[in-house]
């Protein structure tokens, strides 16, 4: 076996990691319950008084996880503040971002045998920014529907404009539904890209979301953005 000299980079704070797994759980639960809300399961031979699996429950679970998801952003923001490695927004204001993104994209399109080493590659970071946009749309449209039971209250005042902007509350439902599917498509791609990176480069891509660290042989191009590495034991 070849002796490898790898360095350990501490990237993700516990806050980001906990947030990530809350997000995973929330998205799965929200998607399943959301589909059930749009197209409720057909339940035969029931009595209203004794229904066990009721629509009310499905909706309440959806709402509870929606609030949990929103609340978990507190962890995300705290991690962002205290830890450099949590700051994942693509550096679109720096010129090298674009050439590096093209470099990574060329590799993913199988046109280049490899791409330059990154701790957090610019294409992935762009996709996370895209995910946050989708999540924001889900939050805005979701609360716009949720709070309009009482349009005059604070929630209706804060989010009611979304329905007007989209041209009708039915459209809000549709946007919420379509973007949910796009998030699932993102999730499939995300899980694949992480597992692929883990198997191909063995840099601890998948385990980094548990341990917070990655192991790199080469000096990554974005090393200056995080804390200096330590030597592997």
């Amino acid at each position: 076996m070849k002796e490898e000299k790898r360095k350990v980079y501490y990237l993700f704070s516990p806050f980001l990691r906990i947030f990530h797994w809350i997000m995973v759980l929330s998205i799965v639960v929200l998607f399943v319950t959301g589909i059930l809300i749009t197209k409720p399961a057909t339940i035969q031979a029931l009595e209203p008084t004794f229904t066990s699996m009721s629509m009310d429950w499905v909706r309440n679970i959806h709402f509870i996880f929606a609030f949990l998801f929103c609340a978990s952003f507190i962890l995300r923001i705290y991690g962002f503040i205290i830890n450099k490695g949590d700051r994942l927004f693509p550096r679109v204001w720096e010129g090298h971002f674009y050439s590096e993104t093209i470099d990574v994209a060329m590799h993913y399109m199988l046109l280049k045998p490899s791409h330059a080493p990154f701790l957090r590659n610019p294409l992935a970071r762009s996709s996370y920014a895209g995910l946050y946009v989708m999540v924001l749309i889900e939050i805005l449209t979701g609360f716009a529907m949720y709070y309009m039971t009482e349009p005059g209250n604070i929630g209706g005042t804060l989010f009611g404009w979304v329905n007007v902007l989209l041209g009708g509350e039915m459209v809000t439902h549709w946007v919420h539904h379509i973007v949910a599917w796009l998030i699932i498509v993102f999730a499939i791609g995300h899980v694949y890209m992480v597992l692929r990176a883990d198997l191909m480069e063995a840099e601890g891509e998948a385990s980094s979301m548990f341990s917070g660290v990655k192991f790199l042989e080469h000096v990554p191009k974005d090393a200056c953005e995080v804390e200096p590495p330590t030597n592997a034991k």
Partner: protein
Amino acid sequence: MDKRESMWDVYLRKGMSRRSFLKGCAALTAMMGLSSDKVAKVAEAAEKKPLPVVVWIHGHECTGCDESFIRSAAPLASDVVLNEVALEYDHLLSAASGAPFEAHLDEVIQKYKGQYILAVEGAACTKDNGVYCMSGGHTFTHLLQKAAAGAAAIIAYGTCAVSGGIQAASPNPTGSSGIAHFTGSKPVVNVPGCPPIPEVMTGVVMHVALFGTVPPLDSEGRPRQFYGNRIHDTCYRRPFFDAGMFAENFDDEGSKAGWCLYKLGCRGPETYNSCGNMRWFQGMSYPIQSGAPCIGCSNAHFWDEGPMSRRLPQFSPAVDVDTIGAGLAAVTAVGVVGHAAASVVQKKKRIAAEQAEKGSGEE
């Protein structure tokens, strides 16, 4: 026309008692959606204020709103028109017609400038200078602008006047829209619905007539007392929704048993109206009660939000958003597997190339 009567004067002229006047005021207060402590205010206004002049014009529409209006039971539409407001001009209900009648409109607009209530039914047709909707030799938009300029307040009756209605549905060949662009800075009360509930129509005009101000409005300009709740949240079938009991077809057991119509495309969860609590025609029924899912007729663009018997947009009988979403996810999954296989091949090639290079370097 010079000496304008108050509602109390009308009661006196008809020889009706003070007692029945006060009873009428109490009924009116309830119909306007106000609490009972406002009865005194209503009685005072009805006693002292001269009957408000109302000009009622019709644009691009089917006049179904008037069909609804004349079915108002409390207050009776005939009472409103004959005893509670001074209806000076109405395209549809007037017996008079022709040039003298049009001249009368101009006279009314001049004489009661800034005092009359303008009720508008129907959309404003804007394409080709509005020639697709004309009356008395002028376009409706011309009449609308003229009448709106001198109005104290404007009531937009029906979804057409509020947001264009069926004329404005895609592809909107006549360029129809709501009347808002033509009313300037005048206060407008939006009373959407296709048609609005009769008692909502009479209730709103009585509110403006008696108090001289528009009722409290929500962010879309609708009176809060009538459009403050979703039909879904006031629907008597809501318990079936919460229990997960749905009619799957228009002719199945659930439909016959009166279960929730959500899966048949009911728009109750998106629609703000009083159908659930006031119902129609003296509380007789409303669409959901008669087994038809709500089509959301008080929503701005409900004609374009079909199919009305489905919750999701439908692209063909078998394809909706969920089909496309699942298809997209499946394609992504297949693509991922293909990409993984190609990546493995690529990596093997790369390692082979590196080893060949290393090998040639060592030799």
